[in-house]
């Protein structure tokens, strides 16, 4: 019997590949281990990835028999989206409310590679949606909203705690945003004696903000490289954000300069 993997085991995070060679005897060995695991834990369905094999195979108890579903996909659905309170052996102790389709139409191949179709309803539909998600690397918490997901990670721990829930680069940006808002507000009141320093120190403020942006860009670059596994495609994001803030800073600088000339 194989070990039933639970969070935060990295092996669960692999994407399962398509089964292409149905004559591979290795598949039988995986199915045998899956069968034993199911019996041992009294499970209704099991995805191969749950015992560490990144193969698109699901075993599912149907009318007392165990059905082998290879390369399963959901190609259609019927009925309403329903709320479903679910737990899973891969996520012990967690119970999460997610949305599911009432009825799903599944296409898969049997052990011989023949196409099969199955329309799953009720409980079958829900458990198969969960197991097929796993085949595609998706888990219960992937179905939560960003906010709920954050709460979940806080409670159950992040994926092996390798990805931070907040990044320093975002903090640098938030601080800069507050600074810029303050700068803008002071500019509005720059005709008063109290706030007139924003005009007098315009170039210095511009310099500080520019350096701030540069620090942000450099740190963000460092952070996205460091957490390559957690985030991606951030190059353009960092560049765009820096450019946007650069433009705001430039506007403030130009505006102050104009205002100063006007007031004098």
């Amino acid at each position, binding site marked *: 019997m194989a070990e039933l993997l639970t969070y935060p085991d990295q092996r669960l995070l692999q994407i399962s590949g398509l089964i292409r060679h149905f004559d591979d005897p290795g598949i039988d060995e995986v199915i045998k281990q899956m069968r034993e695991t199911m019996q041992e834990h009294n499970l209704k369905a099991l995805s191969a990835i749950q015992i560490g094999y990144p193969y698109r195979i699901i075993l599912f108890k149907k009318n007392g028999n165990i059905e082998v579903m290879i390369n399963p996909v959901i*190609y*259609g659905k019927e009925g309403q989206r329903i709320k479903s309170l679910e737990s899973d052996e891969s996520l012990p102790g967690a119970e999460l409310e997610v949305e599911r389709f009432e009825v799903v139409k599944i296409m898969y191949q049997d052990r011989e590679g023949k196409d099969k*179709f199955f329309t799953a309803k009720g409980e079958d539909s829900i458990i198969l949606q969960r197991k097929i*998600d796993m085949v595609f690397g*998706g888990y219960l918490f992937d179905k939560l909203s960003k906010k709920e997901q954050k709460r979940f990670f806080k409670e159950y721990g992040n994926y092996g705690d390798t990805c931070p829930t907040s990044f320093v680069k975002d903090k640098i940006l938030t601080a800069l945003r507050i600074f810029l808002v303050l700068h803008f507000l002071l500019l509005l009141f720059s005709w008063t004696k109290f706030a007139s320093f924003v005009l007098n120190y315009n170039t210095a403020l511009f310099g500080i903000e520019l350096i701030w942006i540069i620090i942000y860009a450099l740190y963000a670059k460092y952070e996205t490289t460091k957490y390559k596994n957690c985030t*991606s495609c951030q190059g353009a994001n960092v560049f765009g954000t820096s450019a946007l803030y650069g433009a705001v800073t430039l506007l403030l600088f130009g505006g102050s300069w104009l205002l100063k000339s006007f007031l004098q």
Partner: protein
Amino acid sequence: MARIVVLGAGVSGHTAATFAKHWLGDKHEVVVVSPNSKWNWIPSNIWVGVGEMTPEDVVFELAPVYQKAGIDFRQAKAVSIHPEGKEGSDRPFVTIEYTDPNKKGETEEVEYDYLINATGPKLNFAATPGLGPDGGHSLSVCTYGHAAEANTHFQNAIERMKKGEKVKFLIGTGHGMCTCQGAAFEYIFNIEHELREAGVRDKAEIKWISNEQFLGDFGVAGLHIKWGGHIVSSKVLAESLFAERGVDWITGAHVKEVQKGKLQYELLDGTEGEETFDFAMLIPPFSGVGLKAYDKAGNDITDKVFMPNGFMKVDADYTPKPFEEWKASDWPKYYQNPDYLNMFAVGIAFAPPHPISKPAKSVNGTPITPAPPRTGMPSGIIGKTVAQTITEVIEGKYSLEEVKEKGHHASMAEMGAACVASTGKSLMNGSAVALTVYPVVPDYDKFPGTGRDPNYTFGEIGLAGHWIKHILHYMFMWKAQLKPGWTLIPE
């Protein structure tokens, strides 16, 4: 003096022609034959289709650009290829028929030393009865004209909704063998975004219909996205996105017929269904443009040069094979015709050996499998690579027979691609999907399982995608018009 004739001025043909001329200079001749007088940055047609850009924003006149570059431009469509020449002449040639208003209908024989077939696809609306805007009942965004027409209907629909009418939008693919799901995907989310902006989202029912086996297949067997701190398939992402935006879907569908306000489809399990609509944008399947080929004696050799779907045979392995035997090495590397070595095919015009997604047929035997995409980035890279090879052959670095050892190669199984699907055009809000996939064609031997390198196959949802899409638009319009520094801009 050698003469390169390029058939077609789309992304691939235009890239090939302009680079070949750039490298070869005035010593050699480059001729472009294209039935269209304008160049079109096709990815931005999506924005034309929702009224965020005008057709003029996404096109420019080719003639002045080619004149400046020293490229001989003939506004005409290619009719036939004669790779062995004709009686009395060994020089190969193509027969063209002018579409230029001044010479309309005139035919001409254009001799060539090297031919690059970049004709792109024929939008095969005829494959599904009633499909398409010309005489059919559905719209398209495949050309800027079609996109503008779609926008007229879209604005009209918004007006009706503002008056309180309910409108049902059906968007996706119009046949079981379509490609370009990505374009339809981008369009549906732009429609959804614009409807929200117009304040009429509650009056709209939006539904996706496609030939993908599962939501998120995109015709490339799906890809992987970093999501919530780990990697998931685009299936999970797409399902979430559709649910979040309240967009319903049908996949695994072959559209059989489109009628006024409704269509019939067949599903993978052989069952049939009907879907009504007020507005339908359905991508057509692609086929070859219907070029003919003749030998020296004038016998039809179209079958020898082209595959039955009308795309040109190149150095791919076209032996019919079951899915489990597909290999990355089946895909062409040099895009050279095996029988006539001075003929190349690039972009959509080359015949792919097989699809990228796992093939499927309905229980009735109807194929419902996305055809492999070969547009955008791969298409530009392939065009440039072939231009490079031909340039070096002309310069005498190696012969046409040696192309397979010494030529430049750009197999789609060794190439990555990036794409961006926007949700509107705003620079300040939105959540575009930016994806990169490597390799485009899965290499199951090199990367067991998914066939893809997980380090280079990923996506991200965020506003940055909009910025990238804007940058791409202006950058490629700049590049294609050969403005200063154009050679430095990558494909």
